[in-house]
């Protein structure tokens, strides 16, 4: 190539570089639109309905820190309609010394003559002071009697935990949860059977069966619960699937069907 052509190419490249180098690579990020977050799981073992209502963090300064790090909403009107048509008002008691904190609405359904263990479809409705409305329904998997297994010795190096159970009407999946007291060691969704060797480890490499006493549940879960919890957090996919209208989160239900205790060595 002639000298003039090479000079031309170099000149063009220099000009383009200079133009590109003037680009501002960082823009300030504006706060996002408000978004309600709701968590509520109906568990047939307990005479309790708890609804957690919060606002997602979208870059707006928070007044109160409560549910996780989200902004609790304590002045919403929260109702749950039972299968028999009874509408229960779930209240957020934020008085000093109250059992639950801000944004946590709770009631005992038996106070309204409702038993979760009878199953059926429940409807949640939330109306905030600013006019945001949330609705959702959950159908409790058909509750059989909870089968309690005898406590047993479990040798990690030798034993395998094998469980199976029948299909439960209304169950989308089944969750196996093992832990002790409040500490959950491992949870996994499965079909109607499970085989876990004593040497199994979690995704973080921790033992599924650490030494000492362990308790496990197998719960039949509805589609809302399953879809919301079945995948880990994914920044490219967005929030976990929600079956709520007007909010992200979950209004789901579970029915424990197996319970067992292990003495792990």
């Amino acid at each position, binding site marked *: *190539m002639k000298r003039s*052509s*090479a000079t031309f*190419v170099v000149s063009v*490249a220099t000009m*383009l*570089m200079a133009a*590109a*180098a003037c*680009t501002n690579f960082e823009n*300030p*990020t504006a*706060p*996002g*639109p408000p*978004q309600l977050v709701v*968590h509520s799981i109906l*568990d047939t*073992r307990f005479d*309790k309905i*708890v609804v*957690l209502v*919060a606002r*997602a*963090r*979208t*870059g707006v300064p*928070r007044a109160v820190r409560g*549910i*996780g*790090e*989200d902004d609790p909403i304590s002045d919403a009107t929260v109702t749950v309609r039972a299968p028999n048509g009874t509408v229960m008002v779930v209240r957020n008691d934020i008085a000093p010394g109250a059992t639950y904190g801000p944004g946590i609405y709770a009631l005992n359904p038996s106070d309204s003559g409702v038993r979760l263990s009878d199953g059926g479809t429940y409807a949640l409705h939330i109306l905030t002071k600013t006019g945001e409305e949330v609705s959702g329904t959950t159908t409790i998997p058909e509750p059989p009697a909870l089968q309690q297994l005898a406590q047993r010795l479990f040798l990690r190096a030798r034993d395998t935990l094998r469980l199976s159970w029948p299909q439960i009407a209304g169950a989308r*999946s089944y969750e196996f*949860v093992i832990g002790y*007291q*409040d500490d*959950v060691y491992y949870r996994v969704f499965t079909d109607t059977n499970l085989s876990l060797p004593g040497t199994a*480890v*979690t*995704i*973080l*490499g*921790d033992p599924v069966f650490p030494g000492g006493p362990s*308790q496990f*549940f197998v719960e039949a879960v509805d589609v809302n619960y399953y*879809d*919301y*919890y*079945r*995948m*880990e*957090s994914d*920044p*490219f*996919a*967005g*929030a976990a699937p929600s079956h709520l209208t007007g909010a*992200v*989160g979950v209004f789901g239900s*579970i029915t424990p069907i197996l319970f067992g205790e292990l003495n792990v060595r």
Partner: protein
Amino acid sequence: MVAALIAAVPAAGQRPTAPDSGKKADSLSRRGPVMLPAVRSDTTRIERRLFESKPNVSNLSISARDLGSAPRFFAEADVLRSLQLMPGVEARNDYSAGMNVRGGEADQNLVLLDGYPIYNPFHFGGLFGTFIEPAVSRVDMMTGGFPAPFGGRLSSVLNVRSAEDARSGVHGTTEVSLIASTLALGGALGSGGTWSLAGRRTYADQIVNLVHRNGFPYHFADVHGHVAHSLPWGFRIAGTIYGGNDLLHYEPENSGEQSQGIMWGNHVLGGTLSKVFATVPVTLGDSLVAEQRVSQSLFDMATHIDDGGFTLTSKVREVRAAGSLTAYSASHTHSIGYELAGQRLDYSVNYPVPLFPSDSVSQSERSISAYVDELWHVTPSLLIETGLRYDDLPATHERAILPRFSLKYFVNENFALTAAVGQYAQWIRSLAREDIPLRPVDYWVGSDSLTPMSKAWHYIVGMERWVTPSRVFRVETFYKRYSRLIEPNPFDDPLRTGDEFLPVQGWSTGADVMIRQFESGRFGGWLAYTYTLNSRTDALGNRFFPSQDRRHDLNLVGSWRFPRYTLAARFNLASGTPYTAIVGQFQRIRYIPYNSGYTSESRLPELQFLTGPRNGERLPMSQRLDVSATTNFRPWGLAVTPYVSVMNVYNAHNVFGYVFDYAKAPPTRISLPQFPVFPTFGLSLSW
């Protein structure tokens, strides 16, 4: 020299020459040496010969010389990185050696080594290509409108040709760079044959180990061999072998630490037997070439994290047989051929983690393909290539008849107008998600009853003008329409079969421009500019710009050869690709069945992200200047070539993604940078 670098058999459109018999060679060798005067020999460039003999629409090529003189990427001359500098070929970012060709998805490219498919031709999570530069003679790429002999992918065909060194004795090249050592040997194999063998291994792990054990427990290694030999009666046999592995293995030093291991690699073995029939029935033409090839291509990936807490495996087992008959006459080249392929494709994962497919898949694919192709010199100024390809998937009872047509009209001997139209099908696809800017590896799966063949139409119109015998100017505009594309379902349910993919359709359009100065004097290089506009429609009917929708991409590549030095530079300026902004975040609260309580504490991250419109934002434009300087001298008959290379000379801050934090007010956005300035040096010895 150039002619010797072409494949073992003539390309369609080129008339074959009958190989010399061994007897003739012997009789010549018995005569005494004859001293000839020095002569200057100018061979017509292969690009020029292709311009004159074929429609050659959307065809690009890079020679070994181009590869050797381009600035290096992290000290390595990389075949796939060099292709990203050509028009129509784009990379998402510095961390990806994968390609998006004319707006197509990254899994739509058929990568061949001497005609044999290779499934994941990358190292280090896409940072480097697998091909060893001294073992490559040239790379041909078709970015659209490819003829009937090629199929199985929607966007492009890339064929990497092994080097063939016909000099007697053993010749070689060894390179020592900052990250790897390469040794390539080759030479004549008897009379009428060649052999080559090349190997490469990175050694950063060994160096870091001297200072800190297990400090960098990663390396990759390749071996690439090729042999070709003429046989009696006009037969020729050629074979290629490639093996490459990446290994990341961490052995715990302290109690409480866990072992981590990821291994992946490709293995390709292929052989081609061809025969030239110099005398054939007159109805077939002047000569005939028959070719039969068989190959096996394997890919394995095994991930073992946290003592097996997370395991992920992916496997491809492919066997392929293909054959063709090509008849040559003065104005016609007729080809017929077939391809039988079987793949065993397995992907399994023991835990549904983000960014990776969560379903385990095991499939057996079979495909039967056949084609006819006709290249016709209608008049001295009109060339037409037309063909028909038939692809059949017996397992899913799917069949496709895919027409191909291209033409070239010579306005004069240096200026031609070109056009092509064709339909393409693809049934092996990747589970990797295009929306994720990092693409460490493709997990291949096949079509089944729920995921039929994807198809695309290509329409291309262009012109090519040879300004001088070594300078060419080319412009092509294209429109591609895709139907039945699929994309991995990010919310795929591992307990349900059939929801692994979601249907997508759409189109890509644009133009690419290339001004190329082939190296004939001091300067060689090219200017390549690509404009693309892409649209996709997802399963819900929402239109979006796909993540590879880079509107403008400009590459300036040049090398200047001086008597003792070679200087090379590459400048890239590219507009930003789309991404999905995060507009908020919240904590997923877990229910505790033991006490009917709720907790925001979990062993795994529970942060959930609220996203804006899909790919509704764009990254800023990126730019990068790489330069290199090479000198050479010849002590003791060796060609010694030390070099220095600087990547991203002025340390441009290029962004490939963002991390948002909405826990803060105002929220923060941290940009994830591409490579900063990175100087490297190395040494090459040739003999």
